């Protein structure tokens, strides 16, 4: 889940300490400068800031909070590098200098170790996980039964299929993402910084011969204070409190945009049921998540699915222009499906309440692309819902949908998919295409290891980035085959001309370029060519100068509705290039044949022709739209809803990590004691001398300086 309405991270401290005084004071540092180190401020002698860290943040739903929290002034702990699960004894019971900051290798980042630390959390100040470049054999922090309460199966609908009673979809899941920790958990990369931390630990914190290690000890401090607590109704209520001119928001509902496009355009202002309109919906999901904040790529979990659907949409462009099928095909890309189907539940809600261009009765059938990475062998499986198929009409349509000779297991429920939300509203024929017969094949479901390596996306080593972009990988070829199958199935399902089905072929070049763009580097020439000129998928930051504590500048980040890459991609792949100029593209209604209600007009950068430096920008006309993907619970104000997703993300001020040495308590108390003694002695002596000054300094009558 990548983005949401209001930016969570608000403050970045630009200047620490007394800046004006410091500028002048650095000039007097030469009085107390150390001999062989170039003059630095004292802060640089003490703290080492860690820059490549990713925190785990707090999320809330109707009843719970999950994720991690630190105290508002950071959590400090003595570093302990964990060697094995038995070594946990040291931070949890034996170690003499609690609290400890436990540094874990990723092989030790398991449920049992994290739960043990959660139970003794008064001795654990925080956890830092070192994420290696190579993935472990398997790791999935998600639950074993994703979205079990917001799918279609419940006690009223297929009770024996609910709660993964027949098939456990994610058997490797350890559920860590859904636990609540009251200490911060950060992830570190395997780089020089982490080496430095481990070296600091080896130099200072190792116990010699079983005796306690000597002070000063190496410690780490993690800041990730989250503002929201308890659950969504509480934090939404606190959002509404109007105390001051600048009300503080504490959490934001998760949500973004769904992208949909269709073969035949719809008038964007006419909502509700359309007579005699029958639509085949092709759906895929866009998002994924990980334990840590925003590091998920979801290569197998989501990218494989939506790239396939985009390629299928492109494959259908030509044939649907020449021989339009009877039914319309609507390509829907849902955002937020990980968090209880935010996008699809919103679209179904809009359809039910006449706020979408079609409604549920217009839907003929649904074909959803799930995880299609095709690891072991080249088998695709079709999943359908056994309960709705008891209805004969539904069953017949589904059997029509089935292609080749794949027959799904009738006693197995649907895997977690957007189709379940459609079925919750009314029985609609639908199938889900996936590469797993029962449990997921994905070993890293909703984890930060679900990356290009998981899809075996490898390029020959001697290629430049541009060449890599064009190189058709093995993975791209297999996904292209799936896209071809999907496109042909959709065309047949929509009642297209049977003789033309075999001419539909997906383009492997487009698939490989999309895979490169989403999994390796999004800053490539093809993505730039299909997007608008000034747009980058980054938040626009508006500076609000304010003072918080010592000279911090507050950046207020407002997420402008900047359309994401998938929107532009779908538009370019299904739409048509026009001859409109840029100003015409922005106001197309002035032209006789163009209408903003029927199409979207996007001005894209285009490629750079070989003999020039200016880009060949042009206007794309496509029937592609963005719709809001915020859970209906927030529209209705039902923050404790059991039917809709109620996930929110907490806000925070700043997130940082640093390491330093801590001194013993004894030395600190000694310093304080000496100081107090010096103060009292000097007060006494000065008082004594100033009263006896006329005796001591007899040459003049007035009191003079006091000598020590």
């Amino acid at each position: 889940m990548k983005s949401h309405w209001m930016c969570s991270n608000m403050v970045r401290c630009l200047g620490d300490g007394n800046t004006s005084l410091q500028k002048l004071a650095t000039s007097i540092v030469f009085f107390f400068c150390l001999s062989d180190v170039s003059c630095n401020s004292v802060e640089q002698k003490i703290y080492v800031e860690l820059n490549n860290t990713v925190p785990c943040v707090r999320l809330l739903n109707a009843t719970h909070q999950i994720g991690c929290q630190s105290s508002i002034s950071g959590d400090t702990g003595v570093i302990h590098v964990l060697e094995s699960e038995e070594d946990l004894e040291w931070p949890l019971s034996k170690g003499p200098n609690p609290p400890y900051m436990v540094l874990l290798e990723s092989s030790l980042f398991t449920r049992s170790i994290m739960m043990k630390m959660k139970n003794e959390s008064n001795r654990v100040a925080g956890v830092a996980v070192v994420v290696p470049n190579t993935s472990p054999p398997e790791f999935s922090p998600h639950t074993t039964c994703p979205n079990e309460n917001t799918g279609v199966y419940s006690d009223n609908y297929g009770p024996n299929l609910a709660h993964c009673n027949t098939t456990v979809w994610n058997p490797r899941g350890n559920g860590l993402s859904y636990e609540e920790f009251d200490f911060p958990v950060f992830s570190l990369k395997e780089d020089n910084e982490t080496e430095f931390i481990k070296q600091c630990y080896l130099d200072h914190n190792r116990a010699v011969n079983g005796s306690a290690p000597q002070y000063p000890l190496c410690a780490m401090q993690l800041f990730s204070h989250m503002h929201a607590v308890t659950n969504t109704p509480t934090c939404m209520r606190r959002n509404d409190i109007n105390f001051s001119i600048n009300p503080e928001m504490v959490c934001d509902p998760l949500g973004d945009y769904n992208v949909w496009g269709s073969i035949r355009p719809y008038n964007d202002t006419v909502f509700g049921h359309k007579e005699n309109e029958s639509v085949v919906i092709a759906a895929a999901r866009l998002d994924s998540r990980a334990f840590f904040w925003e590091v998920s790529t979801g290569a197998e979990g989501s990218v494989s699915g939506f790239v396939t659907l985009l390629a299928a949409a492109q494959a259908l462009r030509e044939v649907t222009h020449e021989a339009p099928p009877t039914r319309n095909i609507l390509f829907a890309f849902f955002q937020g499906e990980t968090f209880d189907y935010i996008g699809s539940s919103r679209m179904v809600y809009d359809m039910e309440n006449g706020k979408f261009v079609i409604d549920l009765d217009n839907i003929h059938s649904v074909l959803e692309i799930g995880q299609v990475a095709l690891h072991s062998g080249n088998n695709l499986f079709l999943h359908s819902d056994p309960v709705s198929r008891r209805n004969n009409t539904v069953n017949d349509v589904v059997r029509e949908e089935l292609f080749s000779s794949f027959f799904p297991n009738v006693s197995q429920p649907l895997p977690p998919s957007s189709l379940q939300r459609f079925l919750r509203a009314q029985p609609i024929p639908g199938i889900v295409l996936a590469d797993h017969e029962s449990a997921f094949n994905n070993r890293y479901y909703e984890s930060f290891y679900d990356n290009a390596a998981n899809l075996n996306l490898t390029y020959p080593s001697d290629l430049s980035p541009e060449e890599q972009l064009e190189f058709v990988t093995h993975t791209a070829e297999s996904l292209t085959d799936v896209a071809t199958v999907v496109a042909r199935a959709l065309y047949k399902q929509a009642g297209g001309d049977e003789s033309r089905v075999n001419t539909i072929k997906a383009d492997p070049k487009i698939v490989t370029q999309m895979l490169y763009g989403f999994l390796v580097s999004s800053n490539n020439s093809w993505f730039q060519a299909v997007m608008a000129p000034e747009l980058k998928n980054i938040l626009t930051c508006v500076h609000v100068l304010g003072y918080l504590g010592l000279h911090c500048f507050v950046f207020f980040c407002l997420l402008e509705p900047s359309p994401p890459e998938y929107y532009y991609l779908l538009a370019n792949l299904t739409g048509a290039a026009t001859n409109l100029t840029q100003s015409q593209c922005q106001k197309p209604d002035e032209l006789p044949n163009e209408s903003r209600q029927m199409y979207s007009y996007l001005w894209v950068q285009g490629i750079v022709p070989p003999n020039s430096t200016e880009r060949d920008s042009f206007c794309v006309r496509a029937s592609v739209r963005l719709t809001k993907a915020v859970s209906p619970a927030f529209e209705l104000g039902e923050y404790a809803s059991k039917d809709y997703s109620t996930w929110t993300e907490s806000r925070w001020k700043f997130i940082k990590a640093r390491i330093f040495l801590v001194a013993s308590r004894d030395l600190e108390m000694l310093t304080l004691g000496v100081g107090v003694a010096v103060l009292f002695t000097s007060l006494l002596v000065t008082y004594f001398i100033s009263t006896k000054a006329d005796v001591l300094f007899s040459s003049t009558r007035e009191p003079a300086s006091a000598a020590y």
Partner: protein
Amino acid sequence: MTAAVFFGCAFIAFGPAFSLFIFTIAKDPLRVIILIAGAFFWLVSLLLSSLVWFIATKATNAQDLTLQKNLLIFGSIFSVILQEVFRFGYYRLLRKANEGLAAISEEDGPPLSVREMAYVAGLGFGIMSGAFSMINTLSDSLGPGTVGMFGDSQYYFITSALMTLALTMLHTFWGVVFFEGCERKRWWVIAVVLCVHLMVFSLSLLNPFYVGSILPVYAIMLLMAVWAFFSSGGSLHNITLLWTCRKSNAETSS
């Protein structure tokens, strides 16, 4: 390091200066003015000398560490000389001001003797010098970490505070001795003060070998204290008087 270290170091560095202020200076507004003006003079001398140092460092290669260190030493020596020059300048200013004050005051004679002005001026220099030395370090001592990650000694804060204390008192004594020397036209006193100041500066370069820097500096401070005591009108006789006075007070009261 924490609040304990912050307060401990603050008390060590500024305790005596604070007690001197409240018992001897705070009651008389004229003394307060001279104190603050003295602090300002010290500040200006620091500003000018740091400007010279700053220009020198910016004009040269920042990567060459020995060159930078030598520039630092040069800058510090220049600063020491400039501080003594400003002390002399302040002396001249106060002499002129004293004549004016004597003219307008109601009592006959100047309201402050040169000895008092010497002490207050010295203390002003000392307080400002101490503030600049210590405030930066104090603000960093409030956090949870201590110095030592890169090989520095963990006693950094406490030794900085002790050094600041010594420097504050030394400036006070130098002020007394310096003004007395100027009054009596003993110019060798100025030269000696300058030399002692340079010696203290060079001892501070020995840090972090704290035994070699703090102990000699405190020894010098004691010697200067004795010299300042004698040059401001004290004598051994007075001390014995004080002692017998106390004894006789104790006898009469008991």
